[in-house]
């Protein structure tokens, strides 16, 4: 299995297409950082427009943690597309190239072959996320420095102390990895039905877009089912940036407001991964390879 995984990773990272995502992330992150570096104070004024008159903001809210928060909110909508580019190509791409029949005629079980491909696409998603962390978090920390993080929502503003943020980012990136692997497993699932990767990529993105729209629509019919959509739980990482409050309404540093909800979201994503991957293996084991 390990040897098969190494082969799959070798193939993934030998393909020029793989690096498109890394370049795209670098370009987006750099542009956001440049924009904040140039126009950051204006942007900060806009974010804090409702607070400034009531509170004195001590310290520098425009710091690396804040920049990373902006980057994550922006990128985690687009990164699934980049992940789908690779995961949806894992089987369909081989079918398109004609190499799938050669792989299946080798002395490896289809289950192991598929699992190695799934793990390779999951590792790719994690490496892409690490790349985002390096550019979005660590580089921003170096360029903009560190201080407290202001998490401005439509109905509240959460202010996290500078020394209470880094671990939250680590947890958020871990959760985001799970969300991206879910997207990866969906792309992978579609991949076994197609003979070129375009179809599975479009199908994956269509599912994400449709589910996201249904989730955000304030219609009772969809409200009742939105909990079953994995897209509802993909943004669960934001939960790490909310704190519990004490009886007097004061935030308690080092806490997560609704950890059970975050864990539940993680569990639902994990369940989706198992369902998508398990179904892909079940169907693929019975499939005639005609490509």
């Amino acid at each position: 299995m390990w040897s098969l995984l190494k082969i799959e990773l070798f193939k993934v990272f030998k393909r020029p297409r793989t690096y498109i995502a890394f370049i795209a992330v670098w370009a987006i992150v750099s542009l956001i950082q440049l924009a904040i570096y140039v126009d950051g104070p204006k942007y900060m004024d806009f974010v804090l427009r409702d607070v400034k008159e009531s509170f004195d903001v001590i310290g520098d809210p425009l710091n690396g943690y804040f920049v990373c928060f902006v980057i994550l909110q922006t990128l985690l909508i687009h990164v699934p597309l980049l992940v789908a580019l690779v995961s949806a190509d894992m089987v369909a791409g081989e079918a398109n190239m004609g190499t799938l029949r050669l792989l299946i005629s080798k002395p490896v079980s289809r289950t192991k072959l598929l699992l190695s491909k799934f793990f390779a696409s999951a590792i790719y998603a994690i490496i892409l996320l690490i790349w985002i962390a390096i550019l979005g978090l660590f580089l921003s920390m170096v360029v903009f420095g560190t201080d407290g993080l202001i998490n401005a929502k439509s109905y509240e503003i959460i202010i996290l102390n500078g020394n209470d943020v880094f671990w939250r980012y680590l947890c958020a990136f871990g959760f985001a990895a799970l969300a991206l692997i879910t997207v990866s497993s969906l792309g992978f699932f579609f991949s076994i039905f197609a003979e070129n990767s375009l179809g599975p990529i479009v199908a994956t993105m269509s599912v994400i877009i449709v589910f996201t729209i249904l989730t955000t629509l304030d219609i009772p019919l969809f409200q009742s089912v939105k909990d079953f959509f994995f897209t509802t739980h993909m943004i669960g990482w934001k939960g790490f940036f909310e704190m519990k409050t004490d009886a007097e309404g004061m935030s308690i540093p080092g806490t997560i407001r609704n950890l059970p909800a975050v864990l539940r979201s993680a569990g639902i994503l994990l369940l989706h991964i198992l369902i998508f991957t398990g179904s892909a293996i079940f169907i693929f084991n019975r499939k005639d390879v005609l490509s």
Partner: protein
Amino acid sequence: MEAIIKVSHLTKTFRELTAVNDLSFTVQKGDVYGFLGQNGAGKSTSIRMLLTLIQPTSGSIEVFGYNLQHHRKEILRNTGAVIERPDLYKYLSAYETLQLFAAMSSVKLTRQQYMDQLELVGLAQRANSKVRTFSQGMKQRLGIAVALVHNPELIVLDEPTNGLDPQGIADMRNLILMLREKMKKTVLVSSHLLSEVEQIANRMLIIDKGKKLVEGTVSELFHPDDTVVLIETTNQPACEELLRNSNYATQLIGIDAAGIELKLRKEEVPVLTKMLIENNISILGIHACHSLEDYFLKITTANQHVEPFKN
């Protein structure tokens, strides 16, 4: 003789279409077994079932004495294949391609051994070139190297000369002959070209619409007694009468607008020609072909989709 492949009553249906219909055949150790049929005859479907790409609807396949369904891994460990086009990873070099497929068969070779494999197919000089820069013939030869990298006993080649230029076809033919003569491999090779199979195979099978038509050794099937001669003359009735009153009467097999057909030994053709000339029969043409070739041509013509163009 040891049977390497034993196919019994193999059938594959895709909804209403029966691609392979109750097919049975045996490939013996050391054979170059020609698997002949037109495009769509069921060759590739049969080969794909042999390589576990397609599940048979019914029937059984035994390879090396093991049931394929129950001993897939053991069988494929000792089988190499090139299935239709030589599709490989365009972004890898020839050397990397061999390494990758050797690893898939749990085989690790030294650099020299990989180079020897590439040398065998004439690609040692291009070991580090990317597959995308290769011609069709080079890709096909690399495909053979991939099939051989884990030193299997059985090699399955599905239409290995498809899309190759004459030199590529000759190279492929020599490679297959080398596999048999020098490396003592058992080779199952499919083709839609009778002449191609005739040159490389010692045993062959012809299938059409998924069914077995003929099976036997090439020497039996291409016996010199089985020559079909078609005579075209300006005076067919006179020619027919002459033949009916001669020793050739029993060898007449067909008379139609195209001409008169006889089945005879190859060396009898000049004697027949001489007799026709001596009897003042104006000959437009005498075409001699092997009866198997004629038979195969008839199958081909029966499946003709477009009428021949007549000016």
